[in-house]
């Protein structure tokens, strides 16, 4: 196993430092901005670990959507002072954390350095899996149930967040001109980038989630720029959020009834199936994330 190169050490140190800063800064604003920096550094780390898909997802989702959500919360007033826990609890927690970390690092040293069985297995079966890019094949064929459930998590998170909204949603009051101008530029770019990512997924890093994040970004920008349709609160919006999961389940049911079994993608039309599911999934993820963002911001609005 190659020794740790200087770059690795520096990168590791950077990640750790930014993480520490993110959690130790007392103010919310500081913590959130440190978190955004951490997102960037992490994307670099993922690239270093030659995981391009993850880098993209991190950039789009990890720092993108999550960052947007967090930034949005900054406008709210600071937290109410709750009952201070005793100092002993914090001290005990820190000590226990330190011990746990030490123990964990020793335990982790016992990790065997040879690869697991799965990469070889995937390599063998990739040819008929409907997608050349291994990660997409795993996501949408070999472990398709995970992806389906993951989409479901998003759907129900959106439903949950939506349920919390009390006031009827309406577009924000008049938006300053530069914002709309910027939006007019950004929107087509984001949409174009999303579709490209989606299509590239079959052969190169990319895929439904990264594309979905792009579309979510587009929608958020449109919402901020005052576009009513972007509020994505209507029945149509909810239909789109759910479309991904429903399409996947329809596919599964179809393969169960007609094909050889649940989610069994016949090599002949596996590629087409994967692509269609990915597109629907991407759009629904986009709308879903946008819904969560809007629900968050609306929850803050004071009913006039």
């Amino acid at each position, binding site marked *: 196993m190659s020794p740790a190169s200087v770059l690795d050490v520096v990168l590791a140190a950077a990640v750790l430092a930014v993480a520490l800063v993110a959690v130790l800064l007392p103010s919310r604003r500081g913590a959130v901005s440190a978190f955004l920096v951490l997102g960037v550094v992490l994307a670099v780390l993922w690239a270093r670990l030659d995981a391009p898909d993850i880098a993209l997802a991190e950039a789009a989702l990890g720092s993108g959507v999550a960052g947007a959500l967090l930034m949005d919360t900054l406008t709210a007033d600071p937290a109410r002072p709750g009952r201070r826990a005793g100092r002993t609890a914090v001290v005990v927690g820190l000590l226990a954390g330190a011990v746990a970390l030490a*123990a*964990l690092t*020793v*335990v*982790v040293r*016992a*990790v*065997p350095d040879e*690869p*697991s*069985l*799965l990469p070889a*297995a*995937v390599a063998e*079966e990739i040819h008929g899996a409907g997608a050349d890019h291994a990660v997409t094949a795993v996501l949408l*064929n*070999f*472990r*398709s*149930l*995970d992806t*389906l*459930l*993951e989409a*479901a*998590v998003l*759907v*129900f*998170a959106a*439903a*949950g*967040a*939506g*349920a*919390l909204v009390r006031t009827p949603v309406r577009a924000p009051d008049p938006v300053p001109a530069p914002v709309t101008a910027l939006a007019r530029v950004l929107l087509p770019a984001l949409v174009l980038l999303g579709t490209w990512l989606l299509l590239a997924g079959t052969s190169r890093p990319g895929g439904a989630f990264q594309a979905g994040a792009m579309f979510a970004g587009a929608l958020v920008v449109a919402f901020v720029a005052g576009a009513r349709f972007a509020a994505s609160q209507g*029945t149509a919006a*909810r*239909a789109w*959020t*759910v479309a991904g*999961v*429903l399409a996947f*389940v329809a596919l*599964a*049911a179809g393969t*169960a009834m007609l094909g*050889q*079994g*649940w*989610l*069994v*993608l016949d090599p002949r039309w596996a590629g087409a199936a994967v692509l269609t599911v990915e597109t629907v999934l991407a759009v629904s993820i986009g709308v879903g994330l946008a819904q969560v963002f809007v629900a968050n911001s609306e929850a803050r609005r004071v009913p006039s």
Partner: protein
Amino acid sequence: MSALLLPALVLGPLAAGAVAAVVPRERGRVRAAVGLTTAALTALACAVVVGGVATAPGHEVRVALAGWEPPLGIVLRADAASAALLVLTTLVGVAVSVTVAVRDDAGGGPAFWPLWLGLWAALHGVYVTQDLFNAYVLLELVTVGAVSLVALGKGRSAGPALRYLFVAVVGSLLFLLAIALVYAEAGTLDMSAAAGRVAPGPLLTAALALTLVGMGAKMALFPLHSWLPVAHPAAPAAVSAVLSALVVKAALVVLWRFWVALAPAAGGAAHVLAVASGVAGSAAVLWGGLMALRQRRLKRIVAYSTVTQVGYLALVLPLMAPGGEAARAAWSGGLLLVVAHGLAKAAMFLAAGVLTAAYGSDHLEDLRGAMRHRPWVVAALGVAGVSLAGLPPTLGFAAKWQLLAAGVESGQWWWVAALLAGGLLTVGYTAVVLRAVSAPADAGEQAPEPPPAAVPTVQAAVPLALAVAAVVLSVLAGGLAGLVADTAPRGLA
């Protein structure tokens, strides 16, 4: 046929939940209709699957999703244990669905249905999945569903929901780390496949420890239980029933599956962890019981009762350790207890919900006279209490009998003492409740006036139906226990 239906158990309710989410909030009736039809269909499917499990040769129904066998693909496998849990989930699920359909503020508004159906699908998934990461994703789906449902509760339910979310996610992260460690060593994510590829060592022990702590946090095992008595009472009536009866069991099932698959290979360390779980369980039994005695609010008493019963369930790990006859008895006892507790606790929380709706508050002082005006609801509370205490003729007694037999067989007297003490404490706080609701009509006091709000009769009858199910099912205990016993795990010897 049952093999075909198994994935439908997971995907069916999921799709229905999605559909319910689309239906606009104003059209509550349509959402309820979707919910009820799904409940009916799921019940049928469960029956077929459970029948399949009972008749199948190895008492198991196995489906490799997407046609890929492990280590590549994900396998859904329903064995006797899953059958028991499916039975429980169906009964409680149908009861809760009926209750909310009849009176929608018991579920906290129209948003109940999509979240509940999603949660229901996730629960089915957790019972049948064989894949570690798949279990993680399902647990997250359960958490999202449950937290959102808690947040629907009236009054200050957002705080407890948030706290529950944080605890659950922390637990899941620890479990994810454990999965990573197991994957690092075994190279596969399928539990039964991984069992053969792990060796006693720091990695496996760390994984076991992390899972125990993670799942302990999610199922509110004693030192980590503080969130439950805050979260469950805050939820709407039907939701707290689902939480205590089913959601707590999801984490438990994952822990048991993980333990049964990987603990035997871990050698001595697993024993130490099992004993730790036993100690935590016994402490939970005593702590939960004593705290329940002190509460002056009905829902908090029932919540602390859940802490007690989770303590019982944690005792199954050490009881299974010695293996052989004791392990078989412990395993079947544990599963019977899961079913018995599920039914009884759902009955208790639904009954508490009815009383709270009728009297406007769940303070024991305000419920004086409920015995006279709502006898059947109080009867449900009583019968559920008896089943929780493990007294005959209920299913709880059969479960307690098996656990005691396991304890005595393997000579672990501490857990036997905890089991017995727990039973007494349970009767203790049930008696406190029964005494509070039956107005002692001494000469001085005037007869208690009837409750202000009317409650639909169906909603009042559901708790009693569940409580009676807990009694009637004791007749089936034999079949269930026999089915479960012969698929019991070999011990940790």
